[in-house]
Structure formats: structure tokens, C-alpha cells
């Protein structure tokens, strides 16, 4: 399983990671080696096996539909890199 530079760039774009040319090359090699090691899973016949997303599934029930206090806006905004009033501010998306 050899990843191409193009595939590395595609995955980095999906993950919203800007990579330097050195990083692209390094991850291409490292991820290729890791994925190659993962190839051994293909040897297992899992045709009739159901997937497990959580090993322990307990029905912990539904809570009562009552209002409980949550974090007040000032506290929720306290760590924001930028804010306007009671909103998080982000760089402009459309002109």
C-alpha cells in the first residue's frame, strides 16, 4: 500500500491540516508503512461478522425532560480567540 503525494494532500485537505512539503513526504512514507501493516486484516474472513462500535452497550435510560442550568454565555465565551457581543467571531466567509 503505497500512498501517492496527491492522496496525502487530499487527506490533509479533508482534515483541514496545512502540511509543509517535508511533512507531506514524511507522512506519505509513515502512513504507507502503517497501512501496509494493516493489510493483514484482509486475511480474515469477516463476511458474516457484524461490526462493533461500542463493546459495552447499556441502556442508561432517558432523563426527565426538565430544564437544568448550563454554562452562561460570558463563561462560554471566556476562552474565545475573538468574539462579538454574545457570539464567537470568525474571519469573513463571504464578501
Amino acid at each position: 500500500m503505497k500512498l501517492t503525494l496527491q492522496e496525502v494532500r487530499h487527506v490533509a485537505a479533508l482534515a483541514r491540516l496545512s502540511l509543509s512539503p517535508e511533512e507531506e513526504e514524511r507522512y506519505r512514507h509513515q502512513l504507507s508503512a502503517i497501512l501496509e501493516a494493516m493489510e493483514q486484516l484482509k486475511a480474515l474472513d469477516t463476511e458474516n461478522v457484524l461490526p462493533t462500535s461500542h463493546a459495552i452497550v447499556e441502556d442508561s435510560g432517558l432523563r426527565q425532560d426538565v430544564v437544568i442550568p448550563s454554562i452562561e454565555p460570558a463563561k462560554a465565551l471566556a476562552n474565545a480567540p475573538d468574539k462579538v457581543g454574545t457570539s464567537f467571531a470568525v474571519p469573513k466567509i463571504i464578501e
Partner: protein
Amino acid sequence: MTPPVLNLSMLELAGALARREISSVEATRACLNRIEAVDARVKAFLRIDAEGALAAAKASDDRRRAGAALGPLDGVPVAVKDIFLTEGVETTAGSKILAGFIPPYDATVVKLLKGAGLPILGKLNQDEFAMGSSTESSAFFPTHNPWDLSRTPGGSSGGSAAAVAAREIFGALGTDTGGSIRQPAALTNTVGLKPTYGRVSRFGVIAFASSLDQVGPITRSVVDAAALLQILAVHDPRDSTSSNAAAPDYLSEIEGGVSGMRLGVPREYFVPGMDPQVEQAVRRAASDLERMGAKLVDVSLPHTRYALAAYYLIAPAEASANLARYDGVRYGLRAPAPGGLREMYLQTRAAGFGPEVKRRIMLGTYALSAGYYDAYYLKAQKVRTLIREDFLRAFEKVDAIISATSPVAAFKLGEKVDDPLAMYLMDVLTLPCNLAGLPGLSVPCGFAAGNLPIGLQILGRPFDEGRVLRIGRAFEREHDFAERAPAL
């Protein structure tokens, strides 16, 4: 010279506090002095909250004086991995992307510790977002193993294990996604417990892989681990995976011994590349348990060799989704980006995440991406089913399973950082337990050449922590490994 008080177990200190032989303020100050004396070399702490801890200790002493202790461990100082949100105290999960983040609330487990009266002395170093097995991927600095400062304490809860081993603190909390409590415990001669998935709340624990993450104690005795679990094992309505089942009294049967118990020894857990000294120590531990009345049963967990590959697809896939939240909008780092929102995301994440985290985000994103989902992620989830069924089948024949915790003793800092696959192999014996959601305990069981600790792993049926602790306690009672302290 370590002051004698710091060699006490949590329950021993609790006894001394109850008898008013020592105050919580004195115990807390002893820890602070010890940190001052050794932490420049061990580097277990990212942050120390002396003021908060001393205020909590003073309040505890007032309660003890008034005969109103909040519980048996009221006043026993602890510290927590930096992955736990602590209201008003900076929390980074070992990442630059969260530098300066001040949580607006406490994780449920932190709230439970405070509610039981335990002063929290600070935040412990870890691999960035718990991704690593050596604490070297911390964005701040690596932690050193108190038994040999040129070696790693393991990871990702390496700061927690090192601080407990170095007698800087009486006990600590860590998290375990693929071995991150048990492996550092094994490498530092401490006791580490990963409870059953769902036994302890994950609310306010910075997420790595949500179907695998679990919170647990690192201590110097099995009894202390039981006492801490007793505080933590509470249903939390804020975590939908938190169990409703009432926790048993873990201490009431812990001295019951192993007589008549059937202990499985899985042949697949004696892996190629295992240090012969580790294998020898574990086989000796097994015969010790047999001598104490347990029956050893040869068991097979045939899909063990596929667990590593399944884990390193599932965990990065979940991580890539969980870490999407670090986008420079609500908290944490925001990189300057004149080009607009998309560039801001790209630059923030490039500047904020370290190499191992980027590697796992890339791997997980790839495994989930169009065209590869079935071949990698879905395949891994199916293999997860087979691994879980292996355990359930074995537990029809045995009460618990014993093995080594880590295939090797502590390795040198820098030895594996450039070889991700070699580092991932460090989790080969611990991660199947996470895939199956089982409880797992590591207890000290000997030393390799160079005075390097070795851990025995005990795995149990879901929610059978009581029995796992009882086996660990029976072993601990017959040996003095856990009492040995590193020379610092």
C-alpha cells in the same frame, strides 16, 4: 531522603488523618516540597496548584476537626492528568493548541474527587491528546522515569505514573484508551486500573477515542486503587455511556484471596519480541497465584494478533472526528490568517498539533474517507467483534485472564520516537482489553536488569472490577515489589 509520610499509601495516610496524627495541610506541604525537590528531574507536572490544594487541605482539616469528614480519603492529596477539565485551572491535554485554555467547569471525576475532600495538587504531563506510549509526544517536555531518568515512564499517562512512583503525590487519575494507565503503571512499579467501559464518567475528559477512552486511578497499592474507584464509579447523567449499575463495595471483598479461582493464561500473550525477563517474571507470578490456590488454565484468544491493526484504525478514526473541534473558533489557539476562514482552520491546526497527533488525524481521516471506509474502518470494527468474542468465550472457562502488561520494561527516551510502528507495538498486550471494553489492572510483579519495573496485567469480565482487584491484592499481599521506591 523521602520524608516517611510520603511512603504511606492513600488509606494509610487516611488513617493517620483520621487519628489526627498528621493534618492534610502537612501532607499537602510534604508533597509540594517533594515536587520542589525532584520534579525538575522527573518532570511529571505541567502545572501545580499549590494555592488551591492548600485551601482544600485546610478545609479538610476543619472538617476532620469537626468530625465531618466527607469520606475515608478526605484530605489525601492527589493530582490528575492534564486531560481532565479543572475549573479555573489551565488544561491543555499536553497540546499547544489548548495552551492557555481555562475550563469553565470541572470534569465529573474531578468534581467527585473534590466532593470526597481530596485536594488536587496539579495537572500531570501526558502524550498530546493521550496519543503515545512514552509521554514524549507532550508538546511541552517529556517525563522521565523515576527508576532511570534516561528512560520513559511510558504513556500516555506517564506524568501520573511518574509522580506516584516518585512519591510526589499519593495517587493520581489517568485515562486509558489502549493501555495509557496500565502500561505506565507497569513501567514505574505502580498500580494502574482501567475500569470497564462505562463504569466511570467521561464527561469533561478531553476526548481521544470515545468508544475506548476510560478513566482510572494510578496508585501505589491495589487497595488504594479500589478506594479511588469507589469514589469514581458513579452514574453520570451527562455521559450517555455511563453505567446505571450501582457499584459494589470494592473494599469489602478485596482481601478474599484467589483460592478456587480459575485464571486464564492466554498463549497468544507471550509475543515475539517480548523481553525474556518480563516473560519470566509473569510466569513466576502465575505460579505464585497457583500456589495461593488459583487454578491456571491455558486459554486461547485467537484473534489477538489482529488487535493492533484494528485498534490503530479505530482509535485514529474516532480521534480524527473528535479533534475536528480544534478549529480556532471557540477556544484555544487561532493562527493569523488574512486569507479567511478556511485558511484560519488550516493554519491553526498546522501550528497547534504536534507530529503524532497530525499522523493519527491523517490516518483516521484516510480510514474514514470515501472509497476506504469499508476496507479499513468497517473491517476494523468487524475484527473488533471477533476480539470481543474471543474474550467472552474465554470467560466461560475462567474468572480472569493474566499476562504481562507491557512486552518490555522501560525503554530509553528517544529510542522509538521516529518509528511509529515500533511505538504502537508497546500497546500490543493492553489494547485488546479496550477493544472489548473490559476492566484491566496492572500490578508490580518484579524487576528487570537495571532495576526496571515489570507489571502483571489482570483482565476481568465486564463490571467485574471487584474480582480483578481481589486478585491483584492477593498478589500484592505476598510480595513487596510495590513498596520499593526509586532512588531519586
